């Protein structure tokens, strides 16, 4: 079962978003579903008076850890190895995939169960393993649904948020033999439970992601609501845990801060059902941890973008983003969509993802909900500068900005240009103003074209005020805005 990676639309985010918005009822349904989760997050955050302190604390811990990363990576490795963990390092996605394959082949593993790991998505692990004749079953229910449908997840926490229960019902009818037309979530979940249980029991190896890795103890923490990660590694005798190098925390005590923030930010729950702490392998079994760079060290080098490594993959930024809610995760064509994805993906592949930093109205809500205080909207703006410097801004935009700058740098030209525009526009027939060339005018009227600009009115007013017996002139008290 192939699991294609997310691919950007050839014309970038705007074209994909266009298509999503075109189905207005569905777009509004998607928007409301995610807003509901944002509201749950708000209630959970409000329940802790220390919420903003927790955010500050988390940001400080991350800043310290990322700055001191080589030290903590070595400390983690030593402590993990002391307990019998096999620690592997991968410079990039390719190496990561090779290492995982190597472990599987060593154990003649043919059947793998995998819990949610955005890192393995990023490395496109599934298609790679499948090419080598290995069955990979994503066990998170949302992930399994999209896997069966052969599409990528559209949200990093809620992979199937873009699907209605009828869609899931159809998919399960085809693949799991559920009653066609049946769409009761309870019934469908029960069917998935049975189906996936078989997979857990038959699996040779279990792969998980890592929510947090603790340098001081050499342990890793995996958080789920479904119990799929735990089932996936409690039965097979080999556990492979894949993590980005930025997932480290210095001390076990630091886990408190992050565990308190994660689920509340992601779904508004106080904690996930299971928060599992793995210190060393099960007796008689193996635990492998694969630590992956894949561009993270480059991001770390940048003063502007380093803080994006704080990310704990909670998805809160997606839930609050008014653009994500109305365009859907697939419109980003990247492993991680939404605000954080629109920094991380272009950072790794600027040409491929150049439309993403512009898929943003700069509202700043993402920055406010981020539990680790990444200045997301500022980084998105800064990234636009990076793209311009790399010549990845369309020529038409570059030319028009140069032209605009030219005009705006010359007061007389600005004033004259404005006057001409205000004089000409009202005289043009409507079809000349509102046509395919006028994107603003598709659904909006243009602003009115007043006969006089403020600077003209101000000059008149000043002149009148300076007249010997002049009071300020009688400009209209009925606001003609």
């Amino acid at each position: 079962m192939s699991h294609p990676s997310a691919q950007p639309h050839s014309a970038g985010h705007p074209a994909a978003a266009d298509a999503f918005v075109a189905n207005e009822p569905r777009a509004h349904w998607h928007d409301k579903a995610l807003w509901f989760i944002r509201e749950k997050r708000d209630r959970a955050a409000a329940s802790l008076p220390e919420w903003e302190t927790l955010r500050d604390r988390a940001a400080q811990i991350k800043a310290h850890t990322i700055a001191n990363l080589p030290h903590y990576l070595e400390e983690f490795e030593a402590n993990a190895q002391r307990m019998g963990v096999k620690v592997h390092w991968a410079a990039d996605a390719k190496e990561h995939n090779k290492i995982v394959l190597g472990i599987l082949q060593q154990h003649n593993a043919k059947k793998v169960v995998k819990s949610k790991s955005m890192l393995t998505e990023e490395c496109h692990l599934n298609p790679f393993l499948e090419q080598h004749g290995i069955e990979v079953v994503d066990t998170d229910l949302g992930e399994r649904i999209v896997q069966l449908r052969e599409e990528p997840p559209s949200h990093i926490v809620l992979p199937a948020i873009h699907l209605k229960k009828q869609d899931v019902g159809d998919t399960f009818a085809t693949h799991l033999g559920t009653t066609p037309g049946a769409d009761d979530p309870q019934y469908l979940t029960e069917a998935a439970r049975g189906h996936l249980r078989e997979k857990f029991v038959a699996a040779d190896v279990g792969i998980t992601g890592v929510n947090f890795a603790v340098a001081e103890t050499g342990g890793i923490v995996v958080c789920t609501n479904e119990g799929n990660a735990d089932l996936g590694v409690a039965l097979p005798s080999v556990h492979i845990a894949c993590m980005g190098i930025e997932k480290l925390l210095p001390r076990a005590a630091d886990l408190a801060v992050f565990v308190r923030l994660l689920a509340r930010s992601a779904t508004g729950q106080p904690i996930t059902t299971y928060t599992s702490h793995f210190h060393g392998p099960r007796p008689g079994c193996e635990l492998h941890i694969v630590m992956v760079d894949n561009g993270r060290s480059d991001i770390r080098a940048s003063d502007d973008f380093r803080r994006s490594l704080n990310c704990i993959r909670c998805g809160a930024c997606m839930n609050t983003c008014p653009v994500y809610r109305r365009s859907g995760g697939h419109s980003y064509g990247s492993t991680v969509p939404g605000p954080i994805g629109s920094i991380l993906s272009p950072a790794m592949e600027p040409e491929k993802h150049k439309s993403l930093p512009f898929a943003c109205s700069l509202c700043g809500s993402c920055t406010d909900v981020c539990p680790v205080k990444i200045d997301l909207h500022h980084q998105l703006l800064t990234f636009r500068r990076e793209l311009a410097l790399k010549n990845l801004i369309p020529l038409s935009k570059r030319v028009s900005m140069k032209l605009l700058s030219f005009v705006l740098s010359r007061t007389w030209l600005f004033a004259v240009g404005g006057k001409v525009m205000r004089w000409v526009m009202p005289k043009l027939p409507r079809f000349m103003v509102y046509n395919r060339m006028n994107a603003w005018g598709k659904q909006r009227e243009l602003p009115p074209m007043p006969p006089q600009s403020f600077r003209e009115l101000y000059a008149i007013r000043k002149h009148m005020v300076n007249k010997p017996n002049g009071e300020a002139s009688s400009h209209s008290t009925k606001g003609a805005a």
Partner: protein
Amino acid sequence: MNAREKILTKLRQQVLPVPPLPGPDGPWITYADRAAQFSAALATVGGQAVRVASQAEALSHLAQLPVMAKAKRVASFLPDVDRANVDLNLVTDPHTLEDVDVTLVQGQFGVAENAAVWIQENSAPLRASLFICQHLVILLPERDLIDNMHQAYERIGRFGPGFGVFVSGPSKTADIEQSLVIGAHGARSATLYLLQNDR
């Protein structure tokens, strides 16, 4: 240069000022009535907290539950559970636990802020039993309730080798059109007995 050296060298080449690591203390929430907060939190995550005097009372309450009445295979990490018919000492392959209906276990402590119970491997040596069962039953002395996760990690102290898990309620998912379904892959129900006495 292998990947390890490549990565560490690259990271060390970037000379970054290291901001201080903050200490663990803070204005962390506490509760006047931990049992009430714990029970309320457990209810919101789909679990059930029952206050009883002792393990004996817990077991007799449990015996009344339909879950128990229908249970064919019961595994218990607690001693003196008559109903238990899976001898965990004889289990070498966790796969054989696939048909366990109910698992009984003692929690080390419970966290009021989020109804999470810490279960450490030494009290549940077969970790699979916690996840593969259909129904999880946890016994926890009320005096082992603490306020928040900071206290939790302090209480755990040093992590030695092994497995430990915070369990908060039954397994669940909302992956199908945001409809909450209790009982995903792990336990379908989580019943927790708060013991007024220690046993």
